[in-house]
């Protein structure tokens, strides 16, 4: 039982941050394909409010790295219009929450226009959505809204939890012919990790990563909850209890096969996410686990998520809303005791 190496042996890597891994994916894809371009607020000379797009304006120029004004309906709707007409837009919203301002454009135009028009329109667009708590950003800048993407057919939903995945999943997203909501965790931008340097490093959609092998229970975690679930698993491992930690990486498509196979071995499952617990992605995952592996379960499938409350503005208080490592550890212990 051990932590699974994220990058296969023999692959050349560099140790960089999550934000820089996204930056590299953008730069590599824009070099590879002249149809790829970007727009968003302050992504040009400033390099984005979180610095993710630094240097891209200088390399690719104002025609392909476009600063917009405060106009989310255009940023996303414009991406949809551009995607139908021969280019591949990768747009940035400053905060995932602002996607709600462009709700019509995300949930109607991107998600439905191909379907409504008999499959004749292509919509290869990526919407980058800085998600989650970041320390004092407040109720309208800190949400985890990925379940909304799962609820409306036609959108792929991606949540990288490591720098390597941030690069590999974004490159796959840009090459995908479908619209992709790319929920990058803004609280993880500075997290460093080994990232393959290859320009062909792609992480496929619909393949969960088993972050840690174990036989006592299965923890399914996304985004910021992946490192917390791994820390919690470490605590239990010190006592000889090995938890399996699975990171789905993409919620649409969702790799239930890996999750179900794990639960069939462990007999117990805990789903953890930063989004509010009610009607979060965990509800869907838990439902599917019991549908597929009911007779293998030794206990109910549990969910751990944020409290059903908005995120408070205060940086200390916001941590009280989302699951902590200690809470994951304690939930896992209780589940094991059932």
């Amino acid at each position, binding site marked *: 039982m051990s932590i699974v190496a994220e990058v296969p042996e023999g692959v050349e890597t560099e140790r960089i941050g999550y934000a820089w891994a996204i930056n590299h994916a953008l730069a590599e894809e824009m070099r590879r394909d002249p*149809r790829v371009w970007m727009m968003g607020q302050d992504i040009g000379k400033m390099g984005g409010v979180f610095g993710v797009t630094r240097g891209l304006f200088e390399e690719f120029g104002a025609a392909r790295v476009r600063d917009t004004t405060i106009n989310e309906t255009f940023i996303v709707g414009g991406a949809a219009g551009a*995607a139908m007409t021969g280019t591949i837009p990768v747009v940035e919203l400053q905060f995932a929450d602002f996607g709600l301002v462009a709700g*019509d454009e995300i949930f109607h135009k991107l998600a439905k226009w191909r*379907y409504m028009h008999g*499959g004749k329109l292509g919509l290869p667009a990526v919407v980058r959505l800085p998600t989650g708590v970041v320390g004092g950003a407040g109720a309208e800048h800190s949400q985890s809204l990925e379940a909304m993407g799962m609820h409306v057919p*036609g959108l792929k939903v991606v949540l990288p939890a490591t720098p390597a995945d941030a690069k590999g999943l974004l490159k796959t997203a840009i090459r995908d012919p479908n619209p992709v909501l790319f929920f990058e965790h803004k609280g993880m931008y500075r997290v460093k990790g080994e990232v393959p340097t290859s320009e062909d490093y792609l992480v496929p959609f619909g393949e969960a990563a088993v972050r840690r092998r174990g036989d006592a229970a299965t923890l399914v975690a996304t985004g910021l909850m992946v490192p917390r679930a791994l820390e919690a698993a470490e605590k239990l491992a010190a006592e000889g209890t090995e938890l399996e930690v699975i990171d789905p990486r993409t919620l649409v498509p969702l790799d239930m096969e890996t999750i179900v196979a794990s639960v069939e071995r462990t007999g117990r499952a805990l789903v953890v996410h930063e989004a509010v617990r009610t009607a979060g992605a965990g509800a869907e995952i838990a439902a599917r686990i019991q549908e597929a592996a009911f007779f293998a379960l030794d206990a109910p499938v549990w969910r751990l998520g944020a409290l059903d409350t908005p995120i408070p503005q205060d940086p200390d208080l916001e941590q009280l809303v989302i699951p902590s490592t200690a809470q994951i550890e304690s939930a896992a212990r209780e589940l094991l005791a059932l």
Partner: protein
Amino acid sequence: MSTKTAQEAEGAATDEDVLALDLYREVSRIRALELLLNRYVKEHGFGGFWHPGLGQEAVQAGAVMALRREDYLFYAHRGLGYALVKGMAPEVLLGDLLGRVGGSVGGKGGGTVHFVDPELGVLGQGGTLGSNFVLGAGAATSIQILGEDRVVAVFFGDGAAARGTFHEAALQAAVWKLPIVWVCENNGWHLSAPFSAQSPTEDIADRAAAYGVPGVVVDGQDALAVRAATLDAVERARGGDGPSLVEAKTLRIRGHYEGDPQKYRDDIADGLEVPRDPLRILRERVPAAEADALDAAAAEEAEAALEKALAMPKGGPEVVTAGVWS
């Protein structure tokens, strides 16, 4: 037939007589289909809501005739004239309205217009009115990035003009000098609300000034005037000078949808009479015999198209799940 005509028309811009005849043909074709649909809905109904464009044919024909085949079109929900004049076959359009697999959306249609033909630049219509503004600006950004010679036409009504998406798209389009022509069909009605009750100014074209772009008002019943005003805007866009707004004043003759009792309205009788009928206005410019022949051909085309559309099968369960993903 019509696409060729549109291209020819551009080359023959100085020959007003030829142009008038071309426009007459298109307005007459749209009218014939409008009357046919009016009859069909009354006799048979169909799944969904038909939003008739009767009386607004000159705006649709005149503006689309100012476009080239490769130009992009985001049309509005009222009628089928836009797509017809851009070159789509009438039986395909009727197939869409009647939910037939031979329609352009392969059986996903039914009632409300969602025609599509990327080869002809026909890109669709937003169910959420006003959503075409941002889509059109995005398509125009593609054109600019790819260095293409195309223009985007975005149609909208006086109701949709109120959407915030217009402001977001217009501001960015003006700053980036995107190749867009906004064609407003001001038919005087936001569904049940008169335009005058919802606009502080008489003309939507005035709003263009806020973005530093041209905004002109044109008689929407005069196809030649609409075509000329739109062509100016198209040429400006193609030349790299950015977007413009053309507001065509027209009138909604029928209800919001066919069957709408229009109890909110006392300005018209519930008939098919078109005040300042664009066909009558164009007739003054074309020989009577030719106009008669075009009317007869248009009626024949419409009847034949309906027959072809009705012969197409309707979609089954396979249509329901097709096309979600690429």
